[in-house]
């Protein structure tokens, strides 16, 4: 435990020290500038924009993941034959790493040779649609969303399915005898009892989406014109592409405080939930 703590504390202390310096690795200059890095970070438009990118990705992905995940979980739950096989096939994406996911979508989304544009074209009744998934300002962020939803949705589905299976069958029987339709069954029994699993899945996905880096690195590199730069990617960019280390470290600390605040909020919510339950 002590080792673990030391492993985390030491780098952070180091980070705080460097955050007071103007330090470019490539030029080897190291100049004490006090709080200027912090002042810059507060005013940094790009960082704010990166946060906005994160937020948009989080909102859209979560909505898509939970709608699809819930629908698929319900569908899996309602069938009797072949459920095990179907669930196994649906959860194939879980077994693939984020980087492999990124690679797969890099190939699938190639504008001229990738199958995605041809498939969309077919659905629209044409041969091909000209979507430049990584180069177009408006589409680039969707490439990230699609890849991340594809990767994470089965995970949400699995958790919700486990929650559905755990619900006592007698509740449904009783409600049916009382004449409840399937919508009522879902709204008044499944949904309230799924709150726990829904919350867990939400929490885990939120954590992952805030950290988002791998997919950005593999798919868009933050481009075009930085419209898909997430916070993680921006910090990486400042520190290890421009080697503007002092400032990069300051941004890291900002992200750290943000994470702390979020963890604290989640902790409070969890505790209140436990108190109610």
């Amino acid at each position, binding site marked *: 435990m002590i080792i*673990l703590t030391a492993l985390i504390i030491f780098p952070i202390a*180091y980070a705080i020290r460097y955050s007071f310096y103007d330090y470019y690795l490539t030029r080897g200059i190291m100049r004490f500038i006090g709080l200027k890095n912090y002042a810059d970070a507060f005013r940094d438009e790009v960082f704010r924009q990166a946060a906005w990118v994160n937020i948009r990705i989080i909102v859209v992905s979560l909505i898509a993941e939970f709608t699809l995940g819930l629908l698929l979980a319900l569908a899996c739950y309602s069938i009797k034959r072949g459920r095990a096989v179907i669930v196994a096939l649906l959860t194939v994406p879980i*077994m693939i790493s984020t980087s492999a996911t990124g690679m797969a979508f890099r190939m699938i989304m190639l504008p001229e040779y990738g199958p995605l544009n041809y498939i969309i074209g077919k659905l629209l009744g044409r041969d091909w649609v000209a979507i430049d998934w990584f180069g177009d300002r408006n589409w680039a962020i969707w490439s990230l969303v699609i890849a991340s939803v594809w990767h994470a949705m089965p995970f949400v589905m*699995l958790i919700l399915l486990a929650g559905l299976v755990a619900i006592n069958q007698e509740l449904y029987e009783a409600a049916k005898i009382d004449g409840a339709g399937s919508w009522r069954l879902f709204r008044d029994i499944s949904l309230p009892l799924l709150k726990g699993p829904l919350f867990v899945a939400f929490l885990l996905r939120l*954590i992952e989406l805030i950290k988002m880096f791998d997919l950005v690195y593999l798919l868009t590199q933050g481009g075009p014109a930085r419209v898909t730069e997430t916070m*993680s990617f921006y*910090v990486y960019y400042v520190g290890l592409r421009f080697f503007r280390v002092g400032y990069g470290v300051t941004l890291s600390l900002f*992200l750290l405080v943000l994470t702390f605040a979020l963890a604290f909020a989640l902790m409070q919510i969890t505790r209140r939930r436990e108190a109610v339950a």
Partner: protein
Amino acid sequence: MTSRYLFTRRLRAVVVYAFLCVGILVAVFPFYWIVTTSFKYSRDHFSKPPVYFPTDYTLDHYDRLFARTDVNALPFLKNSFVLSTFNMVFVVAISIPAAYALSRYRLGGDKARFAILTGRMLPPVILVLPLFLIYRNLNLNNTYLGLVLAYSIFNGPLAVWLLMAFFEDFPTEIIDASLVDGSTELQALVRIVMPLMAPSIVVVALFCFLTGWNDLIFVLTLGGRETQTLNMLMVNLLNAPSNESFGPAAATVVLGILPPFVLTLFMQRYLVSGLSLGGVKG
């Protein structure tokens, strides 16, 4: 039952199955695409429209990865295995006592739990820069040790978190009984708790292995020529300018997918219970 009722029921089943089939197609397609790409001839990679069902298959790309000299995947594969294994052993070794102490004696109470939760939420990128600077001074960049330490920072909290959930379900009477019989706490942990908890510990260990295996950001920044992993190889191949590297890139992805695939199949049963348990206990 009226025939009308039967009809709507059947219709509904058809809709449900159709929906599931679409879902499966979407879920499996990228996987299918990568695998077929790795067996397709290069000319099929760049055809319009794309070749969905290739008629000719080739092992050329795998051949290039292993047999010839231009891309030699073996060192990359070795690095991936070494790093993931060391990480797994190290993390499990330090997180078992930690989790045991935390769950049995509630050491640190809520504060410790909060720290662990935060550790789990931390974006890796926060520590990449400081670690890079520290490692530069200690000459740890581009070493196994440096990377394993970096992985364990993020794996440790996750492992402790999962293990705590498992330990808390463990009946304390058994431990108390052995203490009464004169064993020390450590003996109780090693001789009684660990063998009984072996399945859960294995699952946690596999999780650790996988995080090491799937890492990209640390090997990207803290790794170097001697510590390149499979993930780096596939990034390099895909970013290479020549079209010729497309096939080997796909083949590398397939190689990279295989171990996680096998491991996940093996532990699928525990996946949901492990993950959701870890999340619920706040």
